[in-house]
């Protein structure tokens, strides 16, 4: 049985449609992420589950119980806030104990549970500290311990790492993931950081403009995006709107943009004169590697050295195409303004219908 089920959820703020047609089923113990740009509705959805907003339409079930009319304070969802929301007038212990005291647990049980929660976030010995003596990362650990201590039916994370610095963010996400798996608590995690989402999640729902665009495992989302938005939002991708020539060459079809000519999978393109041809920077290869098939030539516009990767930007028919090269060597770097040639293997190509934005054909082969 699904731990959380959401059916046909809809929410408006005045004239603005914040959520529409939301359907979700999240399994027990699953780490589920809501990913999308700011304003996409992911936080609204999370806050509706927590009970801070009330939906205009639709149902929310937790563990099979319909909670539409359960007030926020009775929903037993443990929320971890973006700005920590650690009570500044209480010690670390009192913060973590707050929810347990509300539940009127006996004293010794409270202190046992607080200790366990603090231990799992590596904050043993901090019980008597006040929040102003803690770093941002430590405050967020208190926030996490406090939410876990009440043994909620679901943990809700509202961009919990966005106020932390880059290194700590990576450390903390590993920790959150480890704690969540150890306790097996169903979790919903909101983020706009696609890398964070790929790393931490069992499954991801990509959202845009109040609508779920795609739900899938991180691999599926990345390699098999169902529409242009998902392809564009998760990872980096080149997109060219190309004219399709009549007739096919076996299971391939020829697409043109100015002097650029590419062979693309023909499947599903029969009724189209145009298609959006998309491929990821890391799938681009040296022109020689494909025997100059699907060659893309252009002038080097920009070279950025990023450490493990060098990123090239080529001017191809007036559009910028990004190419990543791994393990770059300084001696091999092309110069700005130099003509260069790369190729895109046909099996790396994703096609989209330019009108609907929907995917055509199979996913990319990895």
């Amino acid at each position, binding site marked *: 049985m699904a731990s959380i089920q959401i059916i046909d959820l809809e929410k408006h703020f005045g004239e603005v449609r914040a959520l529409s047609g939301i359907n979700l089923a999240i399994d027990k113990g699953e780490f589920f992420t809501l990913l999308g740009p700011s304003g996409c509705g992911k936080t609204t959805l999370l806050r509706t589950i927590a009970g801070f907003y*009330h939906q205009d339409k639709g149902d929310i079930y937790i563990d099979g119980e319909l909670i539409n009319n359960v007030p*926020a304070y009775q929903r037993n969802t*443990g929320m971890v806030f973006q700005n920590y929301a650690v009570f500044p007038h209480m010690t670390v212990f009192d913060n973590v104990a707050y929810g347990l005291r509300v539940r009127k647990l006996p004293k010794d049980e409270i202190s046992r549970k607080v200790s366990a929660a603090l231990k799992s976030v590596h904050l043993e010995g901090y019980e008597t500290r006040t929040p102003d003596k803690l770093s941002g990362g430590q405050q967020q650990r208190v926030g996490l311990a406090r939410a876990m201590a009440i043994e909620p039916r679901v943990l809700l994370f509202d961009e919990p790492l966005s106020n932390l610095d880059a290194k700590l963010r990576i450390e903390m996400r590993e920790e959150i993931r480890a704690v969540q798996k150890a306790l097996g608590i169903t979790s919903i995690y909101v983020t706009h950081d696609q890398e964070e989402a790929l790393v931490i999640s069992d499954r991801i729902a990509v959202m845009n403009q109040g609508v779920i665009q795609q739900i899938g495992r991180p691999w599926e989302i990345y390699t098999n995006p169902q529409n242009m938005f998902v392809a564009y939002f998760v990872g980096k991708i080149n997109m060219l709107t190309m004219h399709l020539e009549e007739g096919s060459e076996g299971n391939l079809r020829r697409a043109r943009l100015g002097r650029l000519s590419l062979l693309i999978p023909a499947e599903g393109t029969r009724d189209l004169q145009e298609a959006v041809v998309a491929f990821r920077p890391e799938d681009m290869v040296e022109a020689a590697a494909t025997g100059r098939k699907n060659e893309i030539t252009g002038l080097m516009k920009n070279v950025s050295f990023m450490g493990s990767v060098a990123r090239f930007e080529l001017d191809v028919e007036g559009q910028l195409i990004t190419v990543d090269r791994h393990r770059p060597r300084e001696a091999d770097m092309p110069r700005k303004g130099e003509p260069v040639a790369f190729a895109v293997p046909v099996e790396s190509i994703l096609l989209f219908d330019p009108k609907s934005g929907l995917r055509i054909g199979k996913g990319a082969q990895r």
Partner: protein
Amino acid sequence: MSRAAETRKRTALASANSGMPRNRFSLQHRGRQADIWTLVIFAGFAIVVVFLIYPLFDIFRYSFLDKTTKVFSMSNWKEFFSKIYYLRAFWHSIVIALLTTFFSIVLGIPLAFFTTRYRIRGTNLLTTLSVLALLSPTFIGAYSWITMLGRNGFLRLMFQSIGINLPPIYGPLGIVLADTLQYYPFISLMTAGALMTIDRSLEEASENLGARSVRTFFDITLPMIIPSVTGGALIVFMMSLSNFGTPMIIGGNYLVLPTLAYNLYTSEISETPGMASTVSIILMLCASVVIVLQQWMSSRRKYASMLVNRPIVKKLKGIKSAMAHFVCYLIVFLSTLPLAVIVYYSFKKTSGPVFKPGFGLDSYRQIFFDVPKTVINSFLYSLIAVLLIASVGTLLGFVIARKRNTAVSVLDPLLMIPYMVPGTVLGIGFIVAFNKPPVVLAGTATIIILTYFIRRLPYSVRSAASILKQIDPALEEAGINLGSPPGRTFRTITLPLMQSGIISGAIMSWVTSMNELSASILLYVGKTMTMPIKIYLSVADGYFGTASAMSTILLVVTGVAMFIVNTYFNRGSETFISA
């Protein structure tokens, strides 16, 4: 609390959190089930209607009733605009307020600049003394200048003995002198605040680009403090315009609008207060214009930065340092002098109204034997008023900060009305409105307590709302999320976080209530007399000893309150100017 109401609350909370416009959320789930906060909003409207709109409307109505025939007529208004007697008071009010504002700026800016930019010894002492002068009852300064520069004032006699005849103190000179030396701290404190929050690098950038320091002051520093100076100037103008005590005591025959309204009311006591009402409305209109200007000014851009680089405090040497010290100490000395004189006189031996050589506690003894009730009244009334102010103010402040809906956005500006109602006007409004059914309160302690309550309410509501704006709504959400119902969350999370702000605000309310004169003097009867009223009457009757002793008690109370707010609540001088 019902779920719908709960949701409504959360919605308001969230909108503050997400930075989206609040009104977008404000109409949601409107008016479903009643909860405690609906009750608070309703009570807010009831207070406004009964204690503000009703009395003010009554004044308005009386201004259009003919005094003898008691039918609708424009006769009062015609009389006001045709008789020089009335127009002169209007003109006097404007002149006094303008002069006071001008001289306050002249004193305030140098004091602010020197104490924030140069090393002046004893800056804290200077600030404390000027705040004490600011918070002391308005009439004390006036009365003290009379003892110094009145017909037989010791300073006048001193100057006479060396052949200098000072101009008479009764009239405009005395009012402007007393007003300026009381109100200039508004300018100096607000300007000092602005000077301390200008990012040092802006002035450094100007010098780096080749500007000399004088040019930097005029091109960079001055434009950045102008919003604060004008803000302070408008407050000074407003305070001076609506001040009743000072012109009453030291004004002589020089009438300004508040004293004119008071005189008219007391002389019209047997008829309908037509002229007093007309003058009240004119006074209120003037005050409203200033308030509107002030709101407009404060909504404009302020330049306060996040204090990345505090300005450097320069150390002056030799003659420059001596001059800067002299200016600062002279200003503060002049404003503290009247207070010191009062305290000095309170310990002089007396015999009836006259002072005798030597020192003693005669004046205090007289108070405690003759009029202990007055002292008790003052403490009791202001204490009850403060309990009301703090609790009602906090609840209404919470509603305004956290529960935006249509009703609240109507209530919010209504609660600010007392800002623009001078005490004299409120007093007249209360006496005309509550002297007849359905509500008869004339002559009771209740009406005086209510005056304190109403006059102070906007400050209390504002302060509670601004405290709440600094408390992250996510903290309350966290409480709710952890299973705590809204009431318990308010009690265990919100209230403890607001506590110190509420208490320090309440202490300031207590001080202003203790010192209230302009409204209560219209409303008191023998058994509800308070210390400020007794002081005024003693001065009028020439019992300077009693007046000094009572004034000293009020000064001590003011000083102790300031000390508590400063030490225990760690609040800076901003608290005092916002009070």
